[in-house]
């Protein structure tokens, strides 16, 4: 089946089995290995992508579901060679250890800041509660997201 969608700003069409998982299409067919897979069952957030700007799990989606949608992967956050402010903040705050959770964390944070541009630390923790970091670098991840949300004031 031919599936048309927008991927990181460009319209594309792929010929694929519509029941193939989106994470497999991204990584194996399209070579976008920034999207990670860990649990494969919705628990860890490593496979997070944005669908029409909203964070979703590519391990629990099949190709047919993204027909006509706008997909953003971690590769699509860089614009004109410039990192996204959330990516920069992750680098600046040392919020990356092994880096496996990072693409999912960053995309979850981008969605969080779109909904709530000035979250408090507790709200950041809630907003990232679907993403697990096996290196347990949560403190610095929260620091980075807090810095990325222009107002760094703690609301609690």
């Amino acid at each position, binding site marked *: 089946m031919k599936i048309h969608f927008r991927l990181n700003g460009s319209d594309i069409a792929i010929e694929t089995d*519509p029941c193939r998982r989106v994470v497999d299409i991204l990584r194996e067919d399209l070579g976008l290995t920034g999207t990670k897979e860990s649990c494969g069952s919705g628990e860890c957030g490593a496979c997070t992508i944005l669908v029409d700007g909203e964070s979703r799990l590519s391990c629990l989606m099949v190709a047919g579901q993204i027909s006509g949608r706008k997909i953003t992967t971690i590769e699509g956050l860089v614009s004109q060679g410039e990192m996204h402010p959330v990516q920069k903040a992750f680098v600046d705050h040392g919020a990356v250890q092994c880096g496996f959770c990072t693409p999912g964390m960053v995309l979850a944070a981008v969605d969080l800041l779109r909904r709530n541009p000035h979250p408090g630390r507790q709200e950041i923790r809630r907003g990232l509660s*679907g993403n697990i970091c096996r290196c347990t670098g949560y403190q610095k991840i929260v620091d980075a997201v807090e810095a990325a949300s222009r107002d760094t004031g703690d609301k609690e």
Partner: protein
Amino acid sequence: MKKEFILPKTLEELWEARAVHPRGALLAGGTDLLVRIRAGRADSQALISLDRIPDLRGISTGDGEIFIGPATTHQQLLDDYSVQKHLPLLRQSVEVLGSPQVRHMGTLGGNICTASPAGDTLPALYVLGARLDLRSPQGCRTVPIKEFIEGPGKTVLRKDEILSGIRVPMPDPGFRAGYHKVGQRKAMAIAVVSMACQVWINDHGTVGRIRLGWGSVGPTVKTLPEVEKFLEGRPLSLEVLREAGQMVSKGVTPIDDVRAGAAYRRLVAGRILLRLLDLLRKEVF
């Protein structure tokens, strides 16, 4: 064998797809179904998506009730003004369901049709007296949620039917509402015990009307009318709630599973009633 995928845009196209693929599965958000398929606990010839049928999405108000399309996502419920204003109980239960990503994908209809004893929206929907529209190409019937769910994963949905709407009566004003969930951790935990409560308190501080529903302490949501009757006319004091809690512990029918033992669940189901003390300090809707 390759599975088919169908993306109907109207109910007519949906009925057609179901006629062509009688063994096809309905796919809403996929957060239950795709996990089960991957684990080998479900199979189907085809996936028929409910995602692009406008009639099955959205929230409207009228005739003293709130109508929710089954393919409405949990996030859409959280963002909706009428849900915030009239159904704070449902809102609270959706707030603690899964993770942000799961709430962006998962739907209310999917949570109901999964009919898990731990389904987080179910205690609220029982307490609120929700009724469900079940539609087939032949017509539509409406059943109360407590008649819809027969047991874990079991509903009265017939082969040719879909859940096409959730009708929640607008509660009389002046109530307080709370959903209390005990799990192994805060985020993304399946409830070990949960309780939904909606209560109207009289001017003189006693309970006028109270509705309670427990999750994860029986094959379906447990309601205990004798406990509600006991509480009505009494103040929500520590002594009263302790006594009622003992009735609850006797009334529930939990099982042992990987998350908790039956005895622990029985104890917590009663003790969780003490959380009603917090409700007294909460907002009145």
